[in-house]
């Protein structure tokens, strides 16, 4: 059977089926609460199927639209990352159909079948007409746009199952347009159904995998990074084997006009019950603090006044968090804050946004009032009772006054224990604290704080295990105090003389020991962290004009766009001027008086043939005698016609004179 024609296989993307773009946009609008815009955009993009009106876009126009889309995307990205930190990526994703709208509009409303790769890739554009067909071709971007709408819709993160069904239906609709002709619906439908059902299972599986993985590694990761504390419960690293290492990551920045007394203990929260490596609270209710009228400021206790203020920058990965704060905190203010609450255990919880947030923290001369001790603050779990009694007897705590007890315990830990972040020996559950107290006599701050709390309880002093950070590092070049993940610390709050006090029995060398593993990469990371902090808004100002710098960023971008537009206009102007000049040059000398004579000769003899020069024509129609008279005339005529810099008046006079002499 001979070949009747060549059926090349389709190498370019097919256009989206009618209605597909609208469907994808509606899903996007439904998920991101932009349904109105989605509907309008969808209709606008589907409309060209019903009308014949088209715009003639040149390649250059499309290139410019692609550039503008790029700039739009950049602005959206910068704005989103500024306001939402890392979470900004989801905002960028959400707005993606807007960023690419110009390009898809240009495609739908132009006569071309797609957008050239030269518009999408600068590298191809630079090659110009030398680009090979392998790299320079047209792409129909309607199907990629449908996918982009679906991925953008996924950022809405609502109605899981319904979204899956709608996305699967949209993709099925799309795949239907790919179906090769040789297959029937009976071939195609079972396959797509199988793929969809399996995909439903896989997406459930993926979610399950993430949950399982997270729960598996939760404890492991908790010690490495700072996360908002659970006010009800905390797992200590007591009993964890291996070397305890916290990261150098900067998680908090404190700027103060006055020098602070370091180490400054920044409390997150306190716990009262200890069992097998876990501290917990029986109840942890939070009281909402009223905001000051007309201001974004919260006074934690109305009768107290601030004696000083510090600016705090904190990185948060959730919208609600317990913040590290000194125990004498009295007020909070800042535009990032939405709500402030305090708990009976001295925790201060804020509602805010994710990313780097800034606020001002006021402190007074007295500690924040906490509740009086509960019976739980004196409980020692029976499992530890015997060992604690043994040590208390050794130290004769039962016969001492509370102040003496505090001094004795402090001295006991200082003289007999040393700091270690390594635990290699494995014991049975719950034995680690006893071994620390009686045998090993080495451990990290959680061992010291837990043991101290229980010993003081044994002596009848109510205690609470407190966690937080120790502010101790000042960066001269950043001119602020830095709190790193490894500055996480625990200590004990004890209640004497109707007041809560603080005791830290961890040997003071804990901080230098924790900093031992600092590397040069850490310094680089510090610089990156600082840049990121500054980009995200930097420190809080009294005027609270956060993110105004974006206007400064928009100025050069706007200037660039204006310049591009002006440049194009100028190019057009230049082209116009050049065209006008060319026209002028073309018209130059058309008023030559020789033309009249030529016309007369044409009537008298024969017309000039196309492309025939004057001299050749004269050679043809005149004899040698007559021709001689015209030689000078032709020279003068040519000069008048084609020599723009010649003295035209003089030439004209000469020409007239010559014509006159010929005619006479």
């Amino acid at each position, binding site marked *: 059977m001979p070949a009747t024609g060549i059926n*090349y296989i389709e190498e370019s993307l097919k256009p989206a089926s009618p209605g597909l773009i609208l469907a994808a946009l509606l899903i996007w609008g439904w998920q991101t609460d932009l349904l109105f815009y989605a509907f309008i955009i969808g209709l606008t993009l589907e409309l060209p199927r019903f009308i014949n009106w088209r715009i003639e876009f040149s390649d250059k126009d499309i290139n410019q639209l692609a550039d503008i889309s790029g700039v739009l995307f950049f602005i959206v990205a910068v704005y989103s990352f500024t306001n939402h930190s890392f979470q900004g990526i989801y905002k960028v994703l959400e707005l993606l159909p807007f960023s690419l709208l110009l390009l898809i509009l240009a495609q739908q409303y132009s006569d071309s079948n797609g957008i050239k790769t030269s518009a999408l890739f*600068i590298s191809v554009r630079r090659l110009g007409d030398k680009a090979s067909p*392998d790299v320079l071709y047209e792409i129909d971007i309607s*199907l990629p746009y449908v*996918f982009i709408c679906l991925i953008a819709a*996924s950022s809405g993160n609502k109605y899981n199952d319904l979204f899956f069904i709608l996305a699967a239906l949209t993709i099925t609709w799309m*795949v239907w347009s*790919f179906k090769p002709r040789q297959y029937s619906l009976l071939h195609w439908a079972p396959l797509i159904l199988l793929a969809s059902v*399996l995909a439903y299972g896989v997406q459930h599986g993926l979610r399950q995998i993430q949950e399982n993985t997270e729960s598996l590694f939760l404890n492991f990761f908790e010690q490495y990074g700072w996360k908002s504390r659970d006010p009800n419960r905390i797992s200590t690293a007591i009993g964890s084997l291996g070397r305890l290492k916290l990261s150098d990551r900067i998680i908090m920045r404190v700027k103060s006009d006055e020098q602070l007394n370091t180490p400054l203990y920044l409390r997150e929260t306190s716990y009262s019950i200890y069992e097998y490596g876990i501290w917990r609270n029986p109840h942890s209710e939070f009281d909402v603090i009223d905001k000051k009228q007309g201001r974004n400021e919260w006074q934690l206790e109305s009768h107290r006044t601030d004696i000083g203020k510090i600016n705090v920058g904190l990185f948060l990965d959730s919208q609600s968090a317990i913040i590290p704060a000194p125990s004498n905190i009295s007020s909070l203010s800042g535009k990032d804050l939405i709500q402030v609450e305090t708990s009976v255990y001295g925790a201060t919880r804020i509602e805010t946004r994710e990313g780097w947030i800034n606020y001002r923290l006021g402190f007074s001369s007295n500690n924040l009032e906490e509740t009086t001790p509960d019976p739980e603050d004196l409980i020692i779990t029976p499992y530890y009772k015997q060992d604690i009694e043994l040590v208390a007897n050794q130290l004769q705590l039962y016969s001492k006054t509370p102040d003496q007890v505090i001094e004795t315990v402090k001295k006991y830990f200082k003289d007999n224990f040393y700091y270690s972040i390594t635990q290699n020996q494995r014991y049975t559950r719950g034995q680690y604290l006893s071994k620390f107290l009686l045998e090993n006599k080495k451990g990290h701050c959680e061992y010291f704080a837990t043991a101290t709390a229980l010993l003081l309880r044994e002596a009848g002093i109510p205690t609470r295990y407190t966690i937080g950070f120790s502010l101790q590092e000042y960066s001269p070049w950043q001119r602020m105090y830095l709190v790193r993940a490894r500055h996480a610390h625990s200590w004990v709050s004890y209640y004497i003389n109707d007041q809560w006090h603080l005791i830290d029995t961890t040997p003071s060398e804990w901080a230098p020991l924790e900093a031992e593993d600092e590397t040069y990469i850490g310094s680089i990371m510090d610089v990156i962290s600082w840049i990121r902090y500054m980009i995200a808004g930097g420190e809080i100002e009294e005027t609270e004009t956060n993110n105004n710098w974006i206007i400064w960023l928009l100025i050069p971008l706007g200037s660039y766009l204006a310049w591009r537009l002006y440049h194009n206009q100028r190019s057009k102007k230049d082209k116009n001027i050049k065209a006008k000049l060319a026209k002028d040059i073309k018209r130059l000398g058309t008023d030559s008086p020789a033309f009249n004579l030529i016309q007369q000769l044409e009537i008298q003899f024969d017309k000039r043939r196309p492309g025939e020069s004057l001299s050749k024509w004269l050679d043809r129609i005149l004899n040698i005698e007559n021709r001689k008279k015209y030689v000078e005339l032709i020279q003068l005529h040519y000069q008048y016609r084609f020599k723009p810099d010649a003295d035209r008046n003089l030439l004209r006079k000469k020409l007239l004179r010559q014509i006159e002499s010929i005619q006479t």
Partner: protein
Amino acid sequence: MMRRLLYGNLKLVYKTSQWMRHRFTSNGILILLIMPIAGVFGFDTRSTLSFQIFSITLLLLITAICYSFFFRGRYLIKRELPDYGTVDTPFFYLCTVTNQNKKDKKGLIIIDQLRTRLPSLSQFKKIKDPLDSKRNKVDQIIGYPRLVNVIRKLRGGSIKPVTLDFISKNSEASTALSLTPLRRGYLYFDSLKLAQSDPLGIYLARKTFKSTDKLLILPRIYKVPRLNLPGKRTYQRGGINNAASVGDSQEFISLRDYRPGDPLKAIHWRSFAKNNKPIVKEYQDEFFIRYGLLLDTWLDDLSPVLFEDAVSIAASFMSSQQERDSIMDLMFIGEKAYRFTSGRNLTDTRNILEILACIEPDPEANLDRLEVMIEQHAQECSAIICILLNIDESRIKLLNKISTYSLPLKILCVTDSLDKNIAHDVNFDIHMIRHNEIQHDLTRLN
């Protein structure tokens, strides 16, 4: 070390992209690209639902790939190539598929591919791509677009896959495939592939059939004007038949006594010994116009495009001599000095074009050898045409040397710059042939 690692990665990227192009349909590639994007955004399943799109696209791909395992059947496939092709000129050839199954088949895709050999790192470093000057710095340093371009050029063209709509059982069907050669020389065909898309139109199941072939691609030919060089007819020892031979082979007629002026090498030494007087061999006298065509092959740092232009121009001159009453010697330096004669039906044009199809530029300076070659043959030439790649000191020296033979000289120099006017500073009349205006400039030679 870094460069080697980078180059290894470039090759890997290239192979992956080729694999994608050959294995997936364009729609399949779209899904393949969307899948990782959806995966990245859906990495945290709590933040977005993008992982659902990832799942759907992943399962579509897996389903399509699994379906491809069921592509069965017995087929035969062969191609019928033409004798020659010409650079940048598309040509068609036939592919015949025999369906040996008991079922009719629809929608089979024929994929023919030219052999692709990736250059080694040292080769890649040496190869220059004229488009590099138009690329940005990153592309220039990393070199991936250059690699793709070089591979494309080395391969010599690409063949678009073709669909065979229908083949009935136990019968054969033919279809034409088209190829536009990108370079001259031999193109090697490796294997033929028969493919079939899955019902979702995403993935291509393939069967490979070993079928090696080679095809010679001739250089591009331009129309050249008759050169009215003022050279006279020259005496050709040995006559027209031997004029094609390289060296000194001659057609012997008789022996005669030595006359002053006879060359020493014409002395017949045996007769000299017998008769004790110099006897020389006499040859059949023949006079005709014989042009020497000098092709400069020393590319130096110049663009390879220029060399291609020079070869095309040489091919145009050589092939234009067939119908004329003159002969032309093509002289160039390759691995050694070569001289081939064309004209007056001496050599088939195809042979000359075959030679020119396979000629390679010489990175080493070879003008001295060319000078020696001309010295040997200048006396046989009526005029000399030089096709130069550049006008520099060494080439001007060569031209000065040639001018000492008092032969009419036509000098052509190929250039890739429209503004380049290097001929101003020399005393020779040099015709600049611009890369983009070859035909135009050749027409204006006279």
